[in-house]
């Protein structure tokens, strides 16, 4: 669960406003890619609509309820995260030199030559990560205590 940093209301307002502005910009980047499959376009459209809704909703909660505003920003951040994960899935981020996530044929050695550096991140994903990072004030998000059988692979 993401925990947004505490701070004076003005800072929170600024962040939320930036969120409302940045999300449509990010989704516009996605929609502008002509080779995207239909599902990605649908996702981008949904994202645009929801973030516009967020942008409209934000001003109504600006004053005086900072707590409500913080909640909205947090929900927006979570939504962005979920969308980013899903969009990452459906748009098949091009990565290079990566192993396939599937078992090799039985009986074959799995020793391989060492991995090389991958290609640069897609610009839209860099944008998303930059927005998220800025929202979190570049601090590590606080994560809830994980169950005993959860292995954090990241």
């Amino acid at each position: 669960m993401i925990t947004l940093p505490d701070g004076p209301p003005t800072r929170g307002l600024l962040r939320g406003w930036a969120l409302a502005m940045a999300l449509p910009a990010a989704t516009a980047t996605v929609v502008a890619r002509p080779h995207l499959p239909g599902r990605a376009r649908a996702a981008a459209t949904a994202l645009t609509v929801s973030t516009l809704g967020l942008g409209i909703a934000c001003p109504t909660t600006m004053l005086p309820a900072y707590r409500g505003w913080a909640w909205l920003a947090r929900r927006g951040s979570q939504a962005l995260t979920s969308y980013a994960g899903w969009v990452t899935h459906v748009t098949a981020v091009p990565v290079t030199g990566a192993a396939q996530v599937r078992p090799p044929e039985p009986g074959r050695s799995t020793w391989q030559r060492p991995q090389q550096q991958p290609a640069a991140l897609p610009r839209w994903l860099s944008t998303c990560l930059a927005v998220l990072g800025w929202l979190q004030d570049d601090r590590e998000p606080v994560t809830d205590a994980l169950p005993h059988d959860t292995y954090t692979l990241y």
Partner: protein
Amino acid sequence: MQPRVVEGSAREDTLVLGVSAYYHDSAAAIVRNGTVLAASHEERFSRRKNDPRFPSAAVAACLREAGATLADVPHVVYYEQPRLKLDRILHTLRAGREARPLAQHALPLWATRRDMEGRIRRQLGPGFAGAVHFTGHHLSHAASAFYPSPFRSAAVLVHDAVGEWATSSLAHGSGSQLDVRQEVRFPHSLGMLYSAFTAYCGFRVNSGEYKLMGLAPYGTPRYTETISRDVVAIHDDGSLTLNLDYFPYARGGPIRSESLDHLLGGPGRDPEGPILQRHLDVAASIQRVCETVVVTSARYAREVTGERNLAMAGGVALNCVANGRLADAALFDRVWVQPAAGDAGGALGAALAFWHRELGRPRTPEPADGQQGSLLGPSFTPDDVQLYLDGQGARYHTARDEEELIERVCDWLEQGLVIGWFQGRMEFGPRALGARSIIADPRRAEMQRTVNTKIKFRESFRPFAPSVLREYAHDPFEVPPGADLPYMTTTSRVRESQRVALDDEAVDRSHSPDLVTRVSVVRSTLPAVTHVDYSARLHTVDPERHGRFHRLLSRFHGRTGCPAVLNTSFNVRGEPIVHSPHDALGCFLTTDMDALVLQDCLLLKDQQPDALRVTVGHRPPTGAD
């Protein structure tokens, strides 16, 4: 990384600071001209177990030991390649709907890590004006194994859960060169396999693996064939292929599937639930599988490199039972395991890899090794300790000399007291090696239960380790004379001559469903450090590395004929090993420990004022969130 000489690197006294952080158990290490000066885990300072945060306190401690400031450090090396790790995470996210929780957790984290160099610079502060470098996760492990080892050349083997993509690596080290030749990649991972079974048996992954290892001797490996047939294919060269139907983590899901539980005959153990025979058998089985992979891959490393020495690191290298099996297999003339084999050791490896590989500096291996007994942390002077104790109002006696101190401690050991032993520089790595240790007389059968339940507050099925004089270790244990095992990274067996014949009652008790009853059976002349299979995690003590601790054991041996003491880490369950006199005094006061030796100061529990227990004993953990 290809070897090259960096401009300006020809100057004398070049400091390289290695950092591992943001996963678990962050650490820092500092190297001057290729010599290790200091290394520490952040958790020891923050008092937060396996602290993953940037190791600011560890960095500061390393700089103090080096007598330097950040302005004197031209190179900081981070222990892995963030971009390559993100590549693996993104790839996993493509797997499907199961990856959504991973996306929710991983992407916000990686949003803050997209500029790791900037992040490290901000954490270090404006005092740092040098360069930030990155090395590979497994290269850091391999470097931590090879460069401090006593070998001029060696095969290097790394097994862990996962770094960027690699889960196992095979490297060859020669002189200052270290080349990673082959690797096994995520999701096929020996470390993840072991962790999945750790979770099945109710222990926390990424920290409870050693408990599973301690549980294994109680069981029968009746699932080994099932695991080898259905769960993992172990190839002739020691590489492995997991059946991913049992491991949804490969798709961003949980570490194991319900189908694995079905295969193993029932649900996994609840963390606080009873340990059933099935869990014991599963532990024994996966331990057997792990040993097979380690030995088989080591044999392959021997074939590929032609080397007669082996260096190992990575979390799996902390499996001292597997290391013992490897020693029994006699594939190599010598095996050296990095004592901080987990990710903390990556900080040390990163610094050494940069020095030798990037700066192209030569390496001269130390005859013993370059790890210096792994006593690489901060120390406190006797004056520091006395000043602290006086400030707290503690009642203590300062030994007039070492002779008196050792005599007094030997008296206490013979009287059956449990003693906190705090001397010199703190250990780097998860094992207590005689600097921050709890010690007791291993000949007393009740000691295992006493120390476990009254002091460590933990599951009492786990054995303690013996610290034994190196020159006498071959008497009670099956090791050759002069065997040098200073890092507690392998197991040996108690000699037949030291074993005790079990009477009928003892035989009955050794089959009890209660593990506490089983482990309390007297099996040898050193019952408190003998496991149910007669194994022991040996720690040899020598005068060169251990000084006062060696003199203590020598005196105890001279008085009793016993060359060993029970040695366990100076902490309680769930807390890091103590770092400072403050931590040590707090642990002493909040447990049933009888006595405490802080440098030259001797404290007895029953002499301490009640007020002290309130002010120090019940302190909140410092630095914890």
